[in-house]
């Protein structure tokens, strides 16, 4: 069974016919060619596929595209503005929060949502917000420091 949906992805409107069981991550990667959103566990645990749906972070591997008809989706590709990195992207670069980079887009989206909702989170709030994203390379310290630096302006 297929379903017609309309999604706004990073501000751009897409009219799509998707399978009833097609996940959002598949639509982003396989139909729209937006491969910045990564796939790993496909069980909503690792956070590699985190995107924002109506500004809230979700695991796009667990969400069916048909469930979010007419909603807005933001991905890592939508973070930069006019050829400049977002402050978070810049901080991830300068603080060494990126190693292999596979988890990076997910962390960026989770942290973006956090700072939009709470621009001045404390360290504990940052850690709490990031607990649903796994990183195997960095040990998290530099990721938390990068988010903290942006929060502290």
């Amino acid at each position, binding site marked *: 069974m297929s379903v017609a949906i309309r999604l706004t992805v990073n501000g751009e409107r897409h009219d799509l016919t998707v399978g009833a069981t097609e996940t959002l991550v598949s639509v982003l990667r396989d139909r729209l060619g937006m491969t910045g959103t990564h796939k790993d566990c496909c069980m909503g645990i690792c956070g590699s596929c985190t995107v924002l749906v109506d500004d809230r972070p979700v695991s796009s591997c667990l969400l069916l595209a048909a469930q979010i008809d007419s909603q807005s989706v933001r991905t890592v590709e939508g973070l930069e503005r006019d050829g400049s990195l977002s402050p978070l992207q810049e901080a991830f670069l300068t603080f060494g929060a990126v190693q292999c980079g596979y988890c990076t887009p997910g962390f960026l989206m989770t942290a973006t949502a956090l700072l939009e909702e709470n621009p001045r989170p404390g360290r504990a709030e940052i*850690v709490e917000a990031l607990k649903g994203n796994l990183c195997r390379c960095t040990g*998290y310290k530099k990721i938390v420091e990068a988010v903290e630096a942006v929060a502290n302006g």
Partner: protein
Amino acid sequence: MSSHWTEPEGEKFALGTLAEQAHWKREYRRIVEGVRGRLPDVGDAGGTVGQPIPRNDALYKVRGRARYAANIEMEGMLHACFVRSEHPHARILGLDTSKAEKAPGVRAALTAADAGEELIGTLVADTPVLARDRVRYAGEAIAAIAADTPAQAAAAAQLVAVEYEPLPAILTPEEALAEGAVEIDPEGNVLIALHNERGDIEAGLAEADLVLENDYAMAQIEHCFLEPPAGIAFVDPDGVLTVMVCTQYPHYHHKQIARVLGRPMDKVRVVQTVVGGGFGGKMDNTVEIAVALLALKTERPVRMVYTREEVFTATTKRHPMKVKQRLGATRDGKFTALDAEYLLDGGAYRSYSITVSGRCVIHAGMPYMIPNLRVDLTTAFTNHVPCGAMRSFGIVKTAFALECQISEMAERLGLSPIEIRRRNGFVDGDTTATGQTLHDVGLLKTLDALEPIYRKRKAEIAAAPKVGSLRRGLGVACLGYGIGYSGVRNPSTARIRVDGEGTVTAYCGTPDIGTGSDMSLAQIASQAAGVSVNRVNVVSGDSTKTDDSGPTSASRTTYFSGNAALIAGRDFRRRFEAAVAGKLRAPADRVRLEADTVTVDNEAMSFKEACRLVADEAPGIVGYGKFDPDIEADILTLKGNPYPTYTFATHLVEIEIDEALGSLALARVWAAHDAGTIVNPIGSEGQIEGGVAQGLGQAVMEKVVRENGYVVNPHYRDYLLPGAKDVPLDIECIFVDNYDRTGPYGAKGVAEVSLIPIPAAMAAAVADASAVRPARLPMESEYLLRLIERRDGAKP
């Protein structure tokens, strides 16, 4: 055939148009200079080695532009998957793919009949590409399907009919070694047995005032790189079979694919894609041969991406290990003897078991001077997924046993855990158990750096009131670790060239697997060449562009490839100076390239101007560097000089244990490392912090659970990884001042070692806090609770 490649073939990042590339290059420089202070444009006299320069690949990774293998799309591309064994040990009586081949979208089915007779494997080729008449573990590949979509391939795989005759499955090394056991390998069930001895073990034990005897056991660990293995193969119009794959060692696959497919080397190209974590797990065989064979069979590009479940059930693991060990010491804490027996579960094929085993034997007793030592190791085949290389090649486990026993010895003798290590730790001129004399040993400096912190926290914890069932404790553990392959030569090479515009390219054979090694090599090469680091592009991990310089593993890239880049950089500088001298008809010794400037007597021109001057000769100005230190060791006793240098460290950890729950938390870590000169402190800190996190995982939560030959927790839901709330932010990296005379600008290597001391230090801290001595990994709460209950039960 339609294998159109829309962007430059082999580019690791979706770079965009030339204008976009130029824009982002400027952005990168602006960001780096603005936030971290100006990036110095200086040469050998004051280059960037030692400076925390942010990695340039991070720019593309934060933009979502990194081309991991699963992100590569090609026109007409097919999707492949494996059909895997349902039995841990069975004969294959029949295999029928006819139904699968007729399923919707299916373009090809591959079986052993398509794969030829050649076996594959890293050190010993012992593994069939696809199982032919027998499977040795549940999850072994038997067939592969290529179809128009991943779902069609997966559905068709279910239609492949395999007729099995189950055989008895050997599930432990003890069963494998028992008399009359079913033979897993044609050469028997002993995968490898090694022995080393120094001094007189019985005399050493007799001389001791105290001998401790303990058993230790450590569970199987999965690497859990977040990017599941993936690769894509296609044949280009010139007939070159290209395989793009996430790997730590593209040149290994290049040779193996050519051999197995019977294809000339120049008709095979292996390109490393951006690697989403390796940790030793991406040095082995995954998708490469299957996608190559399917691409040839279908004449279409073929991609395969593993599922997370496949990563758990069918990729190599860290060996489960048992250690039985006696350690003797005199009353004043001098070690007199170490008698160790290691028993490893190697799984169904050899993979890197021989390397892991050798490293365990060489490192027995490391980093301490123990005059009498005996070590016996046996690695047995079992019907489990093969065990291979993983960060530290087994040393995290042998170190767990040794360091736990030393901590216990210190307590029994009334010495501080730092003092007992100082009394026995290696110093310059000491010889290892294999007979190697050591140089530039910074171990005692790491102990000295931690001692004041240890004393201060010890007093503070003792003075603090105890809250409920929470207890705090401190633990210490050391490590010594050989850099590079064990006991065999493993040279690295580098080539450096320039164009008329002043862009310098360094071709290095060892690939960046996510650690930032390309950045470190750029820093070393630019400093040696006398040009700005901004000019240098590192090209690595492409079989047609770089030489085989071994894998990125064994903490060897900074040291081996760094030395090669250093030699190549200096060679380049000399040749460039000679070329400028030739153009200006000046004596060569009057021309100097330094700090991105060429000076001829008192006149100066920029490097870029000089490049224009020599533009017509630029393609011939190639600096070459090869680093191939003397390495020699006996293959059975490992006697000799197995490594060119060793890196050392001591970790001090503070833990909190809840004695009511048995839960164990890592609160703080002070990690003191002698890694020689630190090339890039952000990178080295990142390696250490990440190693601490992995050490924590192995210490308290990670365990592959196998039942009757099956992995029963093949998901993150049941195999727990440390998250942001588990890993402490209080990790202090201390780099002690040391210079390795054989390293590039004095550097050694730091990548693997930071995980090694964590489990042992945490176990010692548990003993400090709760007076129980864990001897098993992971230290799960049920286990710790049982130890605490036993302790309390033993009280009067």
